[in-house]
């Protein structure tokens, strides 16, 4: 062991390629491949929103996961960045000053600047404290800015917001940005840039220091750093990337409304990041993709989608605090471990149990929703006719739930025995 050298301490270049370069190559490949499948307009619409939310959720995780600061007002930076970008879109249209030549394609940079600037101003007083104080300040600031948005109509445009037209200014890469598949390249490009940028940030001294400050602010001070300064700088970057996402949204929707600054998107980004897993870099990406999908599509299938969202969130908080990414990586670890058999057995039993419980729950919720609405609508999955007066409904629900609980129970009892 004595002849370990400096180089041996760092990961080998093969490792580096596998862990760092390869994921980005795969991501790029996927992004390029998607349009070849001839996706529908809906697909594009959802995909664009996912792209925006991925960047937004990652930027949120810069402060929550990496910085340990729980914010209830991150949408403020998304919104302010986005608003600035919409205004810039207007200036491009009017050809105000030099703006006439500015490519709409690069508006996310304007968004970044706007978000970072807002972060620099608001972060100054609020990052002096961490913990609950910070959380509460963020809540107060978010409410303040949201309320102010209705007072300054020239910037925020009141209830109906500010809109713009993206088909002006200099064209880049031959993209007019009119049709939706043009916009796809715009979103894909900036999502890639955002992910890459934020990933790179974790690899900088400041990024690492942010984690150290989260874990032990006092110690950081005694090795010569100012934790307030660390938090402040990280906050500015998080604001900037949130603004970048805002800029993407500005081009995609061509409109920004004060709602974008409210507590609702701030709460949603928190849920996205947390459900995905704040301890992992990819966590928020997974969370953003799943939750965007739920938000846009689940609400078509069921009125109770918020109920499912709430339940998903609670289940994650209670049983999988490391989020989806934690589940995935936990599975991979278990799969690679020595007694793969035992692991898989318990894992699949839990999965089956969870699945049965889910079925029971869905039946209960869907039947209740229809019963409650009273329009005489009936839940009819797979051609079954489940009304609340039908005993089959309740038998199905009970059997599934009880069986599910029993299975999970046994799976976890086994686990303890194995320990």
């Amino acid at each position, binding site marked *: *062991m004595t002849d*370990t*050298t*400096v180089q041996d*301490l*760092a990961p080998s270049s093969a490792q580096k390629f596998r862990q760092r370069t390869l994921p980005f190559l795969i991501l790029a490949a996927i992004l390029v491949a998607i349009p070849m499948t001839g996706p529908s307009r809906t697909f594009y619409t959802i995909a664009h929103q996912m792209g925006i939310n991925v960047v937004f959720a990652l930027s949120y995780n810069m402060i929550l996961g990496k910085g340990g600061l729980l914010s209830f007002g991150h949408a403020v930076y998304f919104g302010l960045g986005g608003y600035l970008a919409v205004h810039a879109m207007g200036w491009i249209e009017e050809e105000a000053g030099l703006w006439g030549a500015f490519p709409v394609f690069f508006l996310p940079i304007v968004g970044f600047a706007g978000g970072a600037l807002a972060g620099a101003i608001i972060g100054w007083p609020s990052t002096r404290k961490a913990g609950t104080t910070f959380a509460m300040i963020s809540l107060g600031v978010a409410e303040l800015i949201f309320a102010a948005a209705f007072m300054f109509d020239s910037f925020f445009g009141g209830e109906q917001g500010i809109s713009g037209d993206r088909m002006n200014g200099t064209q880049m890469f031959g993209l007019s940005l009119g049709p939706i598949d043009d916009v796809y390249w715009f979103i894909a490009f900036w999502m890639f840039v955002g992910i890459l940028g934020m990933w*790179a*940030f974790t*690899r*900088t*001294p*400041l*990024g*690492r*220091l942010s*984690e*150290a400050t989260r*874990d*032990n602010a*006092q*110690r*950081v*001070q*005694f*090795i*010569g*750093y*100012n934790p307030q*300064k*660390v938090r402040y*700088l990280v906050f500015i*970057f998080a604001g900037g990337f949130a603004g970048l996402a805002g800029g993407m949204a500005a081009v995609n929707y061509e409109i920004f409304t004060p709602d974008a600054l409210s507590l609702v998107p701030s709460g949603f980004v928190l849920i996205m990041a947390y459900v995905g897993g704040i301890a992992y870099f990819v966590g928020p990406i997974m969370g953003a993709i799943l939750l965007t999908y739920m938000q846009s599509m689940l609400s078509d299938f069921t009125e109770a989608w918020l109920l499912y969202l709430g339940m998903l969130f609670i289940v994650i908080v209670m049983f999988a605090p490391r989020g989806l990414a934690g589940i995935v990586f936990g599975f991979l670890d278990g799969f690679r471990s020595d007694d793969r058999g035992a692991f898989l057995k318990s894992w699949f039993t839990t999965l089956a149990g969870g699945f049965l419980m889910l079925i029971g729950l869905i039946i209960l919720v869907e039947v209740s929703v229809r019963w409650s609405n009273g329009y005489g609508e009936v839940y009819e999955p797979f051609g079954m006719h489940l009304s609340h007066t039908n005993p089959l409904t309740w038998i199905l629900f009970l059997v599934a739930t009880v069986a599910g609980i029993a299975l999970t129970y046994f799976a976890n009892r086994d686990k303890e025995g194995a320990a």
Partner: protein
Amino acid sequence: MSTYALSLKDLNKSFGPAKIITDVNLDIEKGERHAIIGPNGAGKSTLFNLISGLYTPTSGSVKLHGEEIAGMAPHLINHRGLSRSFQVSNIFINMTVRENVRCGVLNAMGQGYSWWRNIGSNKEVQSRTYEILERCGLVDKAALPASLLPYADQRALEIAITIAGGADVILLDEPTAGMSHSETDRAVQLIRTATEGKTLIIVEHDMGVIFDLADRISVLVYGEIIACDTPENIRGDAKVREAYLGDEEEPDVKEMV
């Protein structure tokens, strides 16, 4: 006359009505190894807290290389070349050992807050990190998360982080607390090499360690320095024996039996 590495003058600290540190005067030469001993609650840790900037003195002055540092924020004091360890391990448990040390090294290299370079790209940072790990005997554990280190190694890491920033005045608060004999011996060895050429101030209850390491010893009792002398003289000092060491020295196990 050269300036002292550290010089305390009429230092006082009270918490409300309680006077914890009373008129402490202490000058420590460059390169000296100075030990502070005293009964529990005498104010040793408090003194460290005053010097390192965690507490602000009620009155008096603290000079580091002749420069006043009393009341400065800890990170500014650190920039001026003073670094400390903690009585309870205070490390970054979610990071690997190497990253723990690197945090300290980066600051010394002036790259603390930089966000435009890759952390792994600077050869100098890497080699300096390696050097410190080696000095503290942690090289083969470099890739382990700090939380998985055995206790003694956590203490070693605590020291490694403390010296990583390249400070020339090092304050160690009970670095060997909770260690077994063999571990203590190793730790003393480590401290000796790690602080080579630096000014060291150490608080310890283990007299073996103190008498082994220190050039001079100060005895702090109820916030006052009652004696400050070489180890031999301190051992013989009646006041010290009464206040701290106890009437008899602790009997060795061998003698007991």
